[in-house]
């Protein structure tokens, strides 16, 4: 019995370490970043487009727009391809082929982001520049690179969610005369909805937070983008590009950038969660699927 308690205690300590790491990081970022937001003014900081840190002008509107644009683009690509792939694998593919394809897609997650960035710069950027115009480094290039990067997350979690839908749903629907495709989009996808939303949230988290690959392909300009062929700077790139050199208020402003980034991620996650909770159909099954996916 004593051993049991010791092990429980050790495990609790380990679990608390993870949570306290989160608390330490959050409080440190807020402690460093909030004073400069207070000094500049929240509205000025968020809605001004003038970023001249050495002259004391801190406005990160272009970076906020950049992060949102790049993430939205990445999610369009990641969700369309990832979900499509998941549907194919779970509904239309023999299990033996699935057991080869799914791990291969998951391998994508193991490729370092700098490799994605390099492929983007070496192949994608020249293609965009030659065929679509603009400098090549652009919202589009970043979206495609990030879209591929979130593919394994979206695919693999969606597959788990779809597989967790009880077989009886499928059989019942087919017995009523529905085709496989009708069953998929009217029954299975609905039942697995909250698991799929979880997949999208996780993918979005990766897209908003990715730094290295984006620095390489986004162009990092300080201007607001006017089209998807324009270069942008994201919040993460702004921090990573300038942190090495920054001192004083400039450094604090980069921490404040991180505060805004944290806030954006929290807002995006809450919206996604709220949306998934408000979906009426297939609620129970969805929950079951989500539980199974975990």
């Amino acid at each position, binding site marked *: 019995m004593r051993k049991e308690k010791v092990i429980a205690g050790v495990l609790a300590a380990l679990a608390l370490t993870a949570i306290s790491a989160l608390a330490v990081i959050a409080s440190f970022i807020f402690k460093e970043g909030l004073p400069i937001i207070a000094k500049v003014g929240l509205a000025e900081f968020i809605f001004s487009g003038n970023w001249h840190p050495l002259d004391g002008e801190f406005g990160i509107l272009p970076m906020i727009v950049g992060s949102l644009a790049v993430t939205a683009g990445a999610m369009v690509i990641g969700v369309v391809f990832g979900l499509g792939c998941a549907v194919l694998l779970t509904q239309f593919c023999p299990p033996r082929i699935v057991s080869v394809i799914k791990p291969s897609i998951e391998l994508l997650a193991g490729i370092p982001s700098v490799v994605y960035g390099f492929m983007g*710069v070496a192949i994608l950027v020249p293609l965009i520049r030659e065929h679509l115009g603009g*400098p*090549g480094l652009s919202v589009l290039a970043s979206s495609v690179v990030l879209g591929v990067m979130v593919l394994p997350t979206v695919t693999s979690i969606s597959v788990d969610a779809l597989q967790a839908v009880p077989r009886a749903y499928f059989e019942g629907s087919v017995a009523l005369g529905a085709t496989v495709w009708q069953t998929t989009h009217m029954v299975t996808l609905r039942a697995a909805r909250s698991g799929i939303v979880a997949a999208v949230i996780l993918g979005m988290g990766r897209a908003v937070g990715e730094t290295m690959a984006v620095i390489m392909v986004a162009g*990092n300009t300080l*201007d607001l983008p006017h089209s998807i062929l324009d270069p942008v700077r994201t919040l993460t790139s702004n921090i990573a590009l*300038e942190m090495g050199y920054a001192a004083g208020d*400039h450094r604090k402003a980069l921490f404040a950038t991180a505060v805004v980034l944290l806030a954006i991620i929290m807002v995006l996650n809450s919206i996604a969660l709220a949306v998934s909770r408000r979906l009426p159909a297939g609620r129970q099954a969805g929950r079951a699927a989500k539980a199974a996916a975990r």
Partner: protein
Amino acid sequence: MTKWLLVSAAIAVLLMALSFGLGGREEAALAVVGSNSVQPFAEMLAEAYQQAHPGRFVDVQGGGSTVGLQATIDGIAEIGMCSRELKKEEEALFRQVMIARDGLAIVVHPSNPVSDLAVEEVRRMFTGDVANWRAVGGEDRPIRLVVREESSGTREAFMKMVMGKARVSRKAISQDSNGAIKELVKQDACAIGFMSLGLVTSELKAVRIEGVPATAANVLAGRYPLVRPFLFVTRGPADERAEHFIDFVLSPEGQAVLEREGLVRAR
């Protein structure tokens, strides 16, 4: 029980061996930290130095000029590398040694017909006032600016020598290394950027400034207008290992390494 004891003993021994190993290495290596532009040259110097003096180790790290200065103040680095002149308030803090001079090359795509620019023209291009190559005698194409990130040594040298008080256009693309600038400019016929003259290769074209070709010879003769120092800075009481390395760098042998790589000797 004995199994657990054995395992923990093995781990303890491993950890101790590891810490001794790291500690030993750290004591011997001289930390040289700073400018990304100086870094490749410092690495070559370190290699030549370690060959000439077995048993001495130099550990070169990048990070940027400002990082180098800060690391020297904090005592993390014995020597800081800086690719721009020290500012007034910094001069009091450090002892500086110029190890070489470097031209700041204004680079364009090799196919670009423009091959001569005045400093004034370069400034007006980078502020965004001139946005088409036709205005400076080139083809009818937009100008795409490629710059280094805020407060890199190369950027600050460029700001001081070319821009003066003027600001770089917001449309300028920022990259965080000379390599990334090179990669972009060599791909894009509309691009213009700036980088260390020592790192310019045949894939790029360095334009003449005020009619003077960007070459090491012209930097040495004082004819090329855009020249910046590469500095080693130290702080506090002289460190024997740092002095030894700096002496090597300033010796004919060390300077020959730098000249071979395209820099211009300090004296």
